[in-house]
């Protein structure tokens, strides 16, 4: 078996509307190994829809097509939804943006992690609590026993996000899709959450798809970057080569950020070229 976790060719997501189809993703191709792959773009670029299409979470009436979509040798395209659901959570998982809206407010955080364990390991339900505590420890929560019994409103944003990662980890997946996992967090807290995700890739050998609007963050955190605009891929490049990006859109995005090490009277703005979507 090669090290390729995910192989996607010509992925398309479209939604029917009154005046024909709206294409949210237009022909995305990539392979993912045990690495950190960033998908970066502005709102409406199709980056989140890409993550959802991989997990079979595109809401109806959205339609997903591709020439190829394979996960560790399994053909996702011919797989029935029931089997996709069994895969989801167990071997591929998602970390959402905001723990406030993604955790169950009336269940303790530890119990939510334990529940995930019980669903994926029905024979070993007795170990659920122990496993949940181990996962809280793995995401560097200092007092797992205390935190286990807290409700989501009693934990901070950074801790909530670590709980979500623990919940994903307890099922021991091979692929994690993180959709703006740190955008709701303060910079210092977001550094801690990123360090945990970083360890998961390097120590457990996970594949990570990191969806973000923040070019600077993706540049410093990921190995490779896909830049999307209007549902289409503008370019794919190594994160360290982002400074030498060729595409006008990537350059425009990089330039329009205010920078501490540069004084601009005005920030450079750019116009979008309809040719990009051809």
């Amino acid at each position: 078996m090669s090290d390729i976790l995910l192989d996607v060719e010509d992925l398309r997501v479209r939604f029917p509307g009154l005046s024909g189809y709206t294409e949210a993703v237009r022909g995305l191709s990539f392979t993912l190994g045990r690495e950190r792959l960033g998908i970066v773009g502005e709102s409406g670029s199709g980056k989140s829809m890409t993550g959802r299409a991989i997990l079979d979470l595109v809401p109806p009436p959205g339609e997903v097509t591709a020439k190829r979509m394979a996960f560790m040798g399994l053909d996702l395209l011919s797989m029935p939804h029931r089997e996709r659901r069994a895969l989801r959570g167990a071997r591929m998982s998602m970390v959402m943006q905001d723990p406030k809206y993604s955790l169950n407010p009336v269940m303790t955080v530890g119990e939510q992690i334990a529940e995930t364990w019980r669903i994926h390991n029905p024979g070993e339900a007795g170990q659920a609590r122990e496993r949940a505590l181990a996962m809280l420890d793995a995401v560097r929560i200092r007092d797992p026993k205390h935190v286990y019994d807290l409700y989501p409103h009693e934990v901070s944003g950074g801790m909530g996000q670590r709980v979500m990662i623990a919940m994903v980890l307890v099922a021991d997946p091979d692929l994690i899709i993180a959709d703006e996992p740190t955008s709701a967090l303060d910079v210092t807290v977001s550094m801690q959450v990123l360090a945990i995700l970083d360890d998961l890739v390097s120590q457990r050998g996970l594949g990570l798809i990191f969806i973000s609007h923040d070019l600077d963050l993706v540049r410093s955190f990921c190995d490779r970057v896909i830049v999307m605009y209007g549902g289409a891929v503008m370019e794919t490049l190594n994160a360290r080569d982002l400074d030498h990006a060729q595409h006008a859109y990537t350059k425009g995005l990089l330039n329009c950020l205010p920078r501490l090490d540069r004084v601009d009277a005005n920030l450079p703005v750019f116009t979008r070229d309809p040719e990009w979507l051809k």
Partner: protein
Amino acid sequence: MTEKALDVRDLVVRYSSRAVVDGVSFSLDPGDSFGIVGESGSGKSTVLRAIAGLATDRSGTIDVAGKRLGAKRDLAFCRLVQMVFQDPFGSLHPKQTVDRALAEPIAIHGLGDGERRIQEALDAVGLGRGFRFRYPHQLSGGQRQRVAIARALILEPKILLLDEPTSALDVSIQAEVLNLLKRLAAERGMTMLLVSHNLAVVAHMCERVAVMQSGVFVEEAPSSRFRSLKAEHPYTQTLLDASGGFRRGLAAGLVG
């Protein structure tokens, strides 16, 4: 000696009994641009809210153009000071057109010549005539924020309070809105007080920057000082380091 545009002394603001702003002082000359940077819960937005009269349990003094503010804000204050909020989706009435949103301050203040004022305000923020009779849901995020800015400008204020005006926007739209605010502030000689979690945004927009943590200013300096990426206070240094993106060593120092 010219009169200060804004002079805040020993400001303390309490929510229930907890002091979220705990002794903040600063003063701005007319035409100054001053930024406050901090993380969530640092009290940075509360400083703006106290000036605008939205946080009422406060002590300390706030003088605007030499006039001491009491508990209530009058119409004259609104002519002088206007605020732009973070979320352009939440700060415009969903059932009112752009025209109605802009006409309301003119009616409240009994100003004539509404037609001209609305047209000028829309021109100033770069929205064409076609936008005038649209509803907020027919506008993009950046266009809505332009409407919010036009609404703040229509009374021709001297002081602009900006609470994270671009953090809900895409970076390319952020650049456009920041350029717009900078140009308008310069053209009209407005005093600008900008609050943001983004150090680079504040340093770009303001001549002076204060770093706020747990209700107090831990450091205050000209923005040029931050460009060298060196700070005196350890918290400021952390913010500066984190502004460069993810670094393994930095995260290791923070995890605990």
